[in-house]
C-alpha cells in the first residue's frame, strides 16, 4: 500500500533504486544516451558514403577499417542497447506492475541487478572503441571467418585484418547484455503471471503486457544457442580451438545457424512490444475497443512459435542445401499471416472511431504504416529465388530499417509521449511534439526510399567507397546517396527537438492529472506520477482493457477498476 512505503532518498531513487519505475527510468535514460551514440556512428558512415573524398567533420578521414567498425557498432548499439532497453526493459519495468495493479515487480533486487549488468555491458561496449585496434568491425552478426582468428605458436592472427581486443570485448558486452535481459525477462513473466490484482485475468491485460511477455519468452528461449555460440567463438579467438575454423575441422556456417536461431526471433522481440503499444494507444484516441483482441493474442503466440523455424532465410546465400532453403522460404512467407492479422486489427481499430490526432496517436498510426512497407518488402527477401539478387545490397538495408526503425523509434516515441504524463506527472509540449513527429517521418523516408533504389540498382552494402566501381557509381546513384545522407543529418537534428521537449517538460511542463486521456487501463488509476508503491488501495478489475464508448454507459470510457 502506498501509505506503508517510506519515500526513497535521492540515492535510493536514482542511483540504486528498487522501485520498478526508477529502474525503468534508468533503462530509458541509458538507452537515450546510447541512441545518441548509435546516431553519431550512422552520421560517420553516411557522410563517407555521400562524400567519399572529404574528411568527415568531427572525425577526420574515414578509412575502410573505421568505416566497418562504425557500421558494426551502429547495428549492435541500436539493436541491443537502444531497441531492447527502451521497448522491453524501460516500458516493461514501468508498465507491468502498474497495468496489473501490483506494488512492484516480483523480484525488485533481481530487477536492480539486471540494470546494473546492463549498465556494465554498455560501459564495456563503449570502452571497446578505445582499445588497441578499435572496436569490433566484422558486422553485428559477428560471422566467422571475418571475426575469428587462429593462434600460431601462441600468437593471435586475425583473418582479414579483423580486430582482436575490440571483438573480445564485443562478445563480453553482448553476453552480459543477454544475461541482463534473461534475468529481466524472467522477472517480467513471473510478475505478470503471479502478481495480477483481483479480477485481472490474462485476457483482461492490456496488449502491451501480452506483447512484452511474449517477447520476453521468445527472447529467453532463443538466446541459449547464441550464448553457446558466443562461448565457442570466444574459445576460438582466445584459446585457439577450431569450432568455426574449417582448417581445423570446424564449420563456419554453424555460427550462422546459432546466430540466426536467436537473431530472427530477436527481430520479433523488438517488434512485438511496439505493436503492443500501438494496440493500447490507438483505442484511447479512437475511443473504441481494440479490434479482435483474442484473435491477435492467439496469432501473436503463433508468430512467437513460428519465429523459431524461419532463421535460415538469412543464410540463403551461405551455401545451404536448396531443399532447406525451400522449407525456410515457406515458413517465412507464413509469417506474413500473423503480421497481416495484427496490422489489419490495428487499422480496423480506427474504423468508425472518433479519431483524435494527438502526438502519440500520430506516432502509432504512422508506425503501423511505415512498418507495413518493411513487411511487404520482406516478402522479396524471404523468397530464396529473389533473395539471390537482393542479398546484401541496400534493398536489404532499407527493408530492415523499415521494420526496426518504426518498431524502435516510432514505438518508443509513441510510448514516451503517451505515458509521459503518468511517468513524470507533466505534459509534453504538443506543438514541439507534432513538429518532431512530422520532421522525423519526412527525414526517415528521405533516407531509406533512396536506398531501396540504389539497392535495386545493385549497390552492395559492405562497400565504403564506390569510386572503384564506375558502373555502380553513376551520378544518379551518387545523388541518391547524397539525398539519404542529407536526410540523416536532418533526422539527427530533429531529435534535438525531442530532447528539448523531453527535458524541458520533465522540469517544468504543465502538471498532469491522474487520467488525462480518459483512458481505461489500471496505470491511470494511480496518481501522476505514481508514488512508491503505486496505488492507494488494492484495485479490483471488472472488465477488459479497452472498454470505450460502451453503449448505455454514462461516459465514453469505462475504466477497468470502476464497477
Amino acid at each position, binding site marked *: 500500500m502506498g501509505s506503508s512505503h517510506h519515500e526513497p532518498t535521492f540515492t535510493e531513487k536514482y542511483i540504486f533504486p528498487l522501485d520498478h519505475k526508477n529502474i525503468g527510468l534508468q533503462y530509458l535514460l541509458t538507452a537515450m544516451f546510447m541512441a545518441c551514440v548509435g546516431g553519431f556512428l550512422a552520421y560517420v558512415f553516411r557522410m563517407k558514403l555521400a562524400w567519399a573524398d572529404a574528411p568527415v567533420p568531427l572525425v577526420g578521414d574515414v578509412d575502410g577499417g573505421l568505416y566497418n567498425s562504425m557500421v558494426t557498432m551502429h547495428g549492435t548499439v541500436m539493436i541491443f542497447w537502444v531497441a531492447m532497453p527502451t521497448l522491453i526493459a524501460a516500458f516493461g519495468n514501468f508498465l507491468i506492475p502498474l497495468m496489473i495493479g501490483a506494488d512492484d515487480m*516480483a523480484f525488485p533486487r533481481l530487477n536492480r541487478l539486471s540494470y546494473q549488468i546492463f549498465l556494465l555491458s554498455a560501459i564495456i561496449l563503449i570502452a571497446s572503441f578505445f582499445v588497441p585496434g578499435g572496436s569490433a568491425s566484422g558486422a553485428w552478426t559477428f560471422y566467422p571467418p571475418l571475426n575469428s582468428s587462429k593462434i600460431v605458436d601462441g600468437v593471435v592472427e586475425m583473418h582479414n585484418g579483423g580486430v582482436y581486443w575490440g571483438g573480445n570485448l564485443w562478445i563480453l558486452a553482448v553476453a552480459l547484455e543477454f544475461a541482463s535481459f534473461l534475468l529481466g525477462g524472467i522477472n517480467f*513473466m513471473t510478475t505478470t503471471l*503471479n502478481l495480477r490484482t483481483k479480477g485481472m*485475468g*490474462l485476457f483482461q491485460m492490456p496488449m502491451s503486457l501480452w506483447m512484452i511477455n511474449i517477447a520476453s519468452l521468445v527472447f529467453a528461449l532463443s538466446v*541459449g544457442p*547464441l550464448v553457446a555460440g558466443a562461448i565457442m567463438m570466444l574459445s576460438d579467438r582466445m584459446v585457439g580451438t577450431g569450432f568455426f575454423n574449417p582448417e*581445423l575441422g570446424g564449420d563456419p556456417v554453424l555460427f550462422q545457424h546459432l546466430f540466426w536461431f536467436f537473431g530472427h526471433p530477436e527481430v520479433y522481440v523488438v517488434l512485438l512490444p511496439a505493436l503492443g503499444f500501438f494496440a493500447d494507444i490507438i483505442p484511447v484516441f479512437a475511443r473504441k475497443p481494440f479490434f479482435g483482441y483474442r484473435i491477435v493474442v492467439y496469432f501473436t503466440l503463433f508468430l512467437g512459435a513460428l519465429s523459431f523455424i524461419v532463421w535460415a532465410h538469412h543464410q540463403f546465400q551461405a551455401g545451404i542445401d536448396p531443399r532447406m532453403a525451400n522449407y525456410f522460404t515457406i515458413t517465412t512467407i507464413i509469417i506474413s499471416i500473423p503480421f497481416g492479422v495484427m496490422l489489419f486489427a490495428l487499422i480496423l481499430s480506427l474504423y468508425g472511431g472518433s479519431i483524435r490526432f494527438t502526438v502519440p496517436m500520430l506516432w502509432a498510426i504512422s508506425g503501423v504504416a511505415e512498418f507495413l512497407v518493411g513487411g511487404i518488402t520482406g516478402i522479396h527477401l524471404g523468397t530464396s529465388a529473389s533473395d539471390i539478387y537482393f542479398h546484401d545490397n541496400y534493398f536489404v538495408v532499407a527493408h530492415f530499417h523499415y521494420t526496426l526503425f518504426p518498431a524502435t523509434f516510432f514505438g518508443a516515441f509513441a510510448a514516451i509521449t503517451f505515458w509521459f504524463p503518468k511517468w513524470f506527472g507533466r505534459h509534453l509540449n504538443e506543438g514541439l511534439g507534432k513538429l518532431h513527429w512530422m520532421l522525423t517521418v519526412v527525414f526517415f523516408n528521405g533516407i531509406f526510399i533512396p536506398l531501396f533504389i540504389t539497392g535495386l540498382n545493385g549497390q552492395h552494402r559492405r562497400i565504403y567507397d564506390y569510386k572503384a566501381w564506375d558502373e555502380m557509381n553513376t551520378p544518379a546513384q551518387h545523388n541518391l546517396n547524397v539525398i539519404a545522407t542529407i536526410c540523416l543529418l536532418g533526422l539527427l537534428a530533429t531529435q534535438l527537438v525531442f530532447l528539448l521537449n523531453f527535458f524541458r517538460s520533465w522540469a517544468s511542463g504543465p502538471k498532469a492529472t491522474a487520467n488525462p486521456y480518459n483512458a481505461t487501463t489500471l496505470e491511470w488509476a494511480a496518481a501522476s506520477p505514481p508514488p512508491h508503491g503505486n496505488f492507494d488501495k488494492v484495485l479490483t*478489475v471488472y472488465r477488459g482493457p479497452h472498454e470505450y464508448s460502451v453503449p448505455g454507459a454514462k461516459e465514453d470510457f469505462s475504466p477497468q477498476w470502476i464497477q
Partner: protein
Amino acid sequence: MSALTNDMRTATGVITRSNTGIPSSRLAMWFLLGGEVLIFGGLLVSYMMGRLAHPEWAEEAHHTATTIGFINAIILLTSDLFVVMAHADAQRKDGASAAKNIMITVALGLAFLVIKGFEYSHEISAGLTIHKSVFWAYYYLITGIHGSHIVVGIIALTLVARTAKRGEQLQRVETAGIYWHFVDMVWLIVFPLLYIAK
C-alpha cells in the same frame, strides 16, 4: 478466467501474490531452466551435427574414460536422492535435517568435481588437449560449462543450507533443488553423448 487472489503482506508492507498457485521463486526457476535447456541444447545439437558430419570423431571418442564418467553419473544421481530428502525435510519444517542433507549433496558435488579434475589431468597428460581436434574442443567446452553449473549449484546449495539450518527461507530448498536436478539431468545427456557413443 478471472485471476485468483491470495494477497499476502510482507514485513515491509509490499503485497505479494501467487495467481498461478506456484510460488514466484519456483516459477522464475522454471523460466531460468527453460533458458538453460536452450544453452545446453545449442551446444549439444552443434556437437551432434558435427559428430554426424565427421565419422572420424568416433576414433577420438574412443579415448574418453567411460568408467569414470559412469562413476560420476552415479555420484550425481545419489546426490539427487539427498536433495529430495532435504526437500522432504523442508516440507516438514525440519531445517536442521534439510541443511544436513544439503551438505551431503554439496559433498557429492565436490566429489564429482575432484574426479572430473583427475580425469582432465589424465587426458591432458595423454595429449588429449582442447587443441587436439574439434571433438576434444567440444568435450572440454561441454563438460566445462556443465562443471561450472555444478560449481554454481554448490555455492547456491551452501547458501541455502546456511539459512535452512536456522529454519529460515525453507522454500529455497526446493528452488535450489530443482536447479540441482536440472544440472544432474544434463550430465545424463552429456554422458552417453561423449562417453558411451564410441
